[in-house]
């Protein structure tokens, strides 16, 4: 957890305790496959607030234990509903079964700038740390997850 980190200049992600426990539950339920979903909220590059966490299907057909492809239909629905509520898609979350909550090279290669990528580590079915990352100049920078 990085909530005690006070380094200046890092992106801050407001993710409530309740939202975190929901993400952990979904990540654990998806184990041993990767689980994923959408983060709806508000904010700018410096700080984003998550208003709602959503779960989406992982459409990766063959290796869903270590890859994910977020269902674009779920993305579309979340995007439409977020706009209706005056909100926006601020990012996505996915789980790393038996891996640290650190972006992989695959994550980096497939990432888009402007979104927050939340990774939930799951070890033997039990979700652990949650860390947030943003792509800046082709590499991931870790943000601070705060309540």
């Amino acid at each position, binding site marked *: 957890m990085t909530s005690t980190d006070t380094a200046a200049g890092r992106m801050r992600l407001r993710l409530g305790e309740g939202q975190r426990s929901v993400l952990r539950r979904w990540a654990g339920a998806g184990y041993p496959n*990767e689980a*994923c979903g959408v983060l709806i909220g508000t904010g700018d590059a410096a700080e984003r607030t998550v208003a709602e966490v959503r779960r989406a299907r992982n459409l*990766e057909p063959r*290796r869903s*234990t*270590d*890859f*994910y*492809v*977020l269902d*674009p*239909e779920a*993305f*579309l629905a979340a*995007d*439409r509903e977020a*706009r209706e509520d005056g909100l*926006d*898609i*601020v990012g*996505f979350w*996915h789980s*790393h*079964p*038996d*891996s*640290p909550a*650190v*972006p*992989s*090279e*695959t*994550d980096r290669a*497939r*990432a*888009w*700038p*402007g*979104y927050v*990528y939340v990774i939930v580590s799951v070890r033997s079915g039990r979700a652990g740390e949650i860390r947030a990352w943003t792509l800046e100049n082709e590499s991931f920078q870790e943000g601070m997850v705060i309540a």
Partner: protein
Amino acid sequence: MTTDIETGGSASVAGRGARVRVRIPTPLRAYTGGAAEVEAVGSTVREALADLAGAHEGIGASILTPEGERRRFVNIFLGDRSLRSAQDLDTTVSEGDVIAILPAVAGGAGAKERRLAELRSEIPEVTPAEARELQREGALIIDVREPDEVAAGTPVGARRIVRGFLELRIEEHVDSTHTPLVLMCAGGVRSLLAADDLRRLGFSDVRSMAGGFDRWKGEGLPVEVPERLSPSERERYARHLLIPEVGEAGQLALRKARVLLIGAGGLGSPAALYLAAAGVGTLGIVDDDVVDRSNLQRQILHTDAGVGTPKVDSARERLLALNPDIEVRTFPERLASDNAERLLAGYDVVVDGSDNFATRYLVSDVTTRFGIPNVHGSIYRFEGQVSVFWPGRPEAPGPCYRCLYPEPPPPELAPSCAEAGVLGVLPGVMGMLEAVETVKLLLGVGEPLVGKLLHYDALATEFRTFRVERDPACDWCGDHVESPPALIDYEAFCAVGAA
């Protein structure tokens, strides 16, 4: 036609088209001045996107390929319908339709990456500069890349063990499982896996070089281009390359080696054939004799057709027929005090296959002076003996021939083969033992026959080894000798004529 414009977008499509709303995802809003939604005009999705691209420079290339296909990492929806194919983009649009552009969201821990991430957390990684510093302090850099990668260069001083043989060959390079090791590959991934292998074998100080050789080279650290065997050499010496004690490094050492054979007779024939076959790069042969039919009972370098020709020419032809890659230098001279130093200069090992005491003393004295090993063989009817005389041996000086025989025997007690006869196959055995000792010396493997005399009795089928002590008071190699005496008249010393 210009239409609308809450966002500054414009429609450039001629004629009538429907006005549609295009939802822009966060990553592409840099192109729309931050707008989350813009209008565009067109009668189809493709036309609307073209209009969008015309109004917002840069956005078109993020959505469509130059051929007009949807980019793989972008999803395009018209309403709820996902437009996947090129034809889908030609779908007609109506006034007020919503086109949503959504990035494809994907990623994942990746099994391979997961493993690498774990290894990175367990195995220390060092930069090339740090590896260089560790190397200076005694660490070994192990280059685990494939031979074709190494051919373009390797860190100076690095050991080369291809990854597939790492566990089998690492012990040839290190004396202790505590030796600090830095594994290196091209980019730093294979080295991490290799480091893990060695760690499991019990090596305690194993690191991986981050960025591998690419980064080493990029940072301007010293590189050497290693010598390599050619594909045909790999084929020829395949059975050598399988032996850890030889391998490519050993075979290259043989290729670089220069061995001088004194005599192309009974001992020199098998020795020369096997040394040529083994790939000793330069073989010198000193012999002033011509082939006689009576030689062919044992001197297998020569042929019946060669009777009457110089032995060195006959030998050269036969050796190059066996191995055309080597160099054979021929000296049709009789070794004597006035040419011995010239003939022996530059050789790594001398194989003495001579048949007379004068030459043996001369070979011993010059090799002692040059500090190089003298692989000695001699034969008598059914018996033979072999030894390596090497007072200049760096790790432990051995005796010279004079330590064993300070004085030549009386001529009547030392008959030559021509006088006493010899079983034809016997010099074959002894000459091959000389070849074995020579190859061992060149490879630096095993225990050479230094300070020992191997005696073979063919009738009793008995090999016996005798210790031969170095004489500290020897006039030629003793402790008091700072430089050996000048060469003498060996014929007079032995009081024998040519054998």
